[in-house]
């Protein structure tokens, strides 16, 4: 959990650093506000990175945050701690599997288009991942496909993506 959080925070820091660095290449007018905002974002991100790297900084900030909430009896910090504990319990395998399924839907849509990817994704997801019955998996895929076709293609006349293979 801690390593994942470190990776995510450093990823955000990397994006901000990259954007701030790029800012200096723009004309003065175009870089004025991005620099002002970017420097603030950079300070905040560096502070966050220090907090995930060194426990001392995290404890210092935690104490300040508790003081901030003390008067209003706010339970925000408790909620956050609970969320962190919950995150630690997260099943990594399941997480990766969900991302893969979502990626399958996006890639399938790009390659085969909405009309094929949607029912295929729904059916396979319901049957293989959710272990639903054949009837439910098939009927739900059909109903959603029909609704999508009726609303978006028939009523609204939106030219839905047909896929790159067709």
């Amino acid at each position, binding site marked *: 959990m801690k390593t994942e959080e470190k990776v995510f925070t450093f990823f955000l820091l990397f*994006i901000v650093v990259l954007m701030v660095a790029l800012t200096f290449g*723009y004309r003065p007018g*175009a870089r004025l506000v991005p620099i002002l905002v970017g420097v*603030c974002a950079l300070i905040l991100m560096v502070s966050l990175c220090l907090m995930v790297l060194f426990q001392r900084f995290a404890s210092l900030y935690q104490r300040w945050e508790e003081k901030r909430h003390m008067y209003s009896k706010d339970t925000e*910090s408790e*909620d956050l701690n609970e969320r962190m504990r919950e995150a630690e319990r997260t099943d990594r395998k399941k997480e990766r599997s*969900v991302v893969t399924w979502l990626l399958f839907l996006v890639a399938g849509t790009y390659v085969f288009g909405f009309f094929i990817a949607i029912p295929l994704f729904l059916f396979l997801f319901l049957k293989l991942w*959710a272990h639903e019955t054949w009837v439910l998996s098939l009927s739900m895929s059909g109903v959603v496909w029909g609704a*999508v076709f009726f609303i978006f293609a028939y009523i609204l006349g939106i*030219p839905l993506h047909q896929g790159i293979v067709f």
Partner: protein
Amino acid sequence: MFDLKLFVSMLANMVGWPGILLLISGTIIGMIFGAIPGLSGTTAIVVLIPMTFGMDPGTAMLWLAATYGAATYGGAIPCILINTPGEPPNAATILDGYPMAQKGKAGMALGSAATASTLGGFIGLLVTLLMIPVLTRFLMAFSYQEFFMMALLGLCIIAIVGEGTLIKGLASGFFGIMLSFVGYDPITSVLRYTFGIQYLWDGIPVVPALFGLLAIGEVMDLLVKERAVAEAQSARASRRQVWAGVRATFKNMPLVLRSSALGTFIGAIPGVGGTVAGFLSYMQAKQTCKNSENFGKGDVRGVIAPEAANDAKEGGALLPTLAFGIPGSSAMAVFLGALTLHGIDVGQDIFVANLDVVYMLILAALGCHMVAAVIGLSVADKMAILTRIRPTLITPVIFVVCLIGSFALRNNMGDVFVTFLFGLLGYEMRKFGFSRIALILGLLLGTMAERSFRQALMTSTIWRFFTRPISLVLFLAILAVLILPYVRAYRKRGDI
């Protein structure tokens, strides 16, 4: 001057045949379009306009206004049930609407949203009608400085919304503002942060990003944890719960009035946008209500305030559209087009030459709120069942709807990829306690803040921000928003 005879005649037209059919059908269409992520009231009007060609202007406006008016309430439904705003202006309803659904109070949230929307819509239209002479003069005094201050005021909510710690909220907000700079610079047209990708020239599309951050991020979490939206041990939605929401709204009438007034005022300013109305209203509710620590955790007042403001702003937005021909939003721009197509010239003359159409617009907006409330309240307990369906059944459907909704906005596959990427970002942000709402606020208001700030600097000096009366008042309001909670807290402790 108010023409009672004409007003009554228009009212008779609306409740007569086929007026009542158009009012009801328009309201239902609007609610459906508002409730489907990716579609909106604007899309509904665009779809309906060709069908109004054979109608007289009054009847056409009745149908279109009813459709658009109901879409705003429709947008609150996915916010509460699946953490997905139909449109950015509805995003503020998520802050407390979704936590209410998680606690098993979706029925109450939907009931209060329907009531607050109706009351807000009514108040917005009445305030607009009564304040036309004053508001018109007031609006003319708005310039770049005021726009900047309005954007800044909206951004201040980053420090107030309670998802994660303050430092993570601020970091998310600033990160969102940085992302809003992607694409053409609004003043010099220099391309920024596009990395040679043509898709990014217009910037990061807000609605697909919103779908990803809020909806995809949330449903991924539901799937991983294998839990429904509503907690298993929470109470089942019932009609009684829906009525509790209605009662709660009437109990908080001062809040409804304050939020509606704020919504009308913001709606009347062209270019500020509905998102500001919802969030500012939420912020004022959090700042002025007792026991504000419950906001963000499923407080019904956090639903009432943005919903009332959201619907009231539509009344306000009618004023510049009709009086000056300046549309305050994309929906009003489409509406303006519809008026022109029917041969109606907007401007001060509309209140003389086409008063019947103006009355019909107002009556339709009032009528659709009533019909939407009746429909909304009667089906709220049924809709709340969605929050109890097991995640493996509902989440793949939400994935599909969000992806197709983001594609439908511009018929662009790039938007689908943006939704996916922001979905991953939203999931990780949620997991590590970063504020997704703060990022969205930054993304939504960053461009407006930058553009107005630079336009203000091009036309005058920085001191003009503090010497223009409205701008100064807004600046003081920003200071008050940031400092008052601390002053209050210290006072409570007895330090000062």
